[in-house]
């Protein structure tokens, strides 16, 4: 009896769930949407990246006095290499598009 009652209640819940998207009609202009998406970087992601950078910056202040000039120069060189590589990849991606 309880099982039957629960089964009926569950059917009711399923109906409520199914109806929960019926109040909206959702339409897309797909070609426009794709152009829009190609030009977007989600604020959601930008916020995450910004939070990471802030964290790195604050940690860096703790350590920067303890880093030798040699290490600083090595990091600068590595960064330069890395930036060039990223630019090359981005360039290639642009050409592909």
């Amino acid at each position, binding site marked *: 009896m309880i099982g039957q009652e629960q089964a009926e209640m*569950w059917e009711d819940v399923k109906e409520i769930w199914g*109806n*929960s*998207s019926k109040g909206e009609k959702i339409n897309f202009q797909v*070609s426009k*949407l794709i152009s*829009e998406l190609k030009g977007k970087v989600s*604020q*959601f992601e*930008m916020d995450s990246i910004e939070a990471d950078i802030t964290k790195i910056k604050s940690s860096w202040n703790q350590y920067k006095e303890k880093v030798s000039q040699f290490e600083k120069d090595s990091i600068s060189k590595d960064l330069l290499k890395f930036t060039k590589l990223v630019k090359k990849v981005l360039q290639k991606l642009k050409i592909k598009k």
Partner: protein
Amino acid sequence: MQRQEEKVFKKILDDNKYSIYRICRIYTVPPVEAQDLFQEVVFQIWKSLPNFKEKSNVSTWVYKIALNVCARSKNQLKKGNINTVRLESVEFKSSDFIPDADQNEKYNALHDCISALEESDQSLVILYLEDLSYKKIAEITGLTENHIAVKIKRIRKKLLNCITSKLK
């Protein structure tokens, strides 16, 4: 090539938009609205499209993205503010379907009771309400079918008790 990409993307959205919307709606916590989350899910589907493996099922893949985005946004909201992407080309219009007060009350109870569940249980019950088989739920969650069956039985009971007490 571009036309093909456009066709695939359109089909994915058309086939899954209302499932995505239902999931977004259940994860909505003010000030974020279901429509905001929906746009973020569309954006993430677009971004993940090049990595989509044809061998896996499209809807399974879409459910995974929708659940991840929605759960993540809820966690971000707890930590502070959240900014979702805005897409002008996605249009929301009210339909002719207007739920009555009783249906609204029941939906609110369902929303509150699902929100009160643990995060992993929320995903399971949402997929079950979407009428997915245990096999598909297993593909999405990585749990075994037996484990899902046991968990669903328990969650279902918990959810019904919660809804009943809210509607008294």
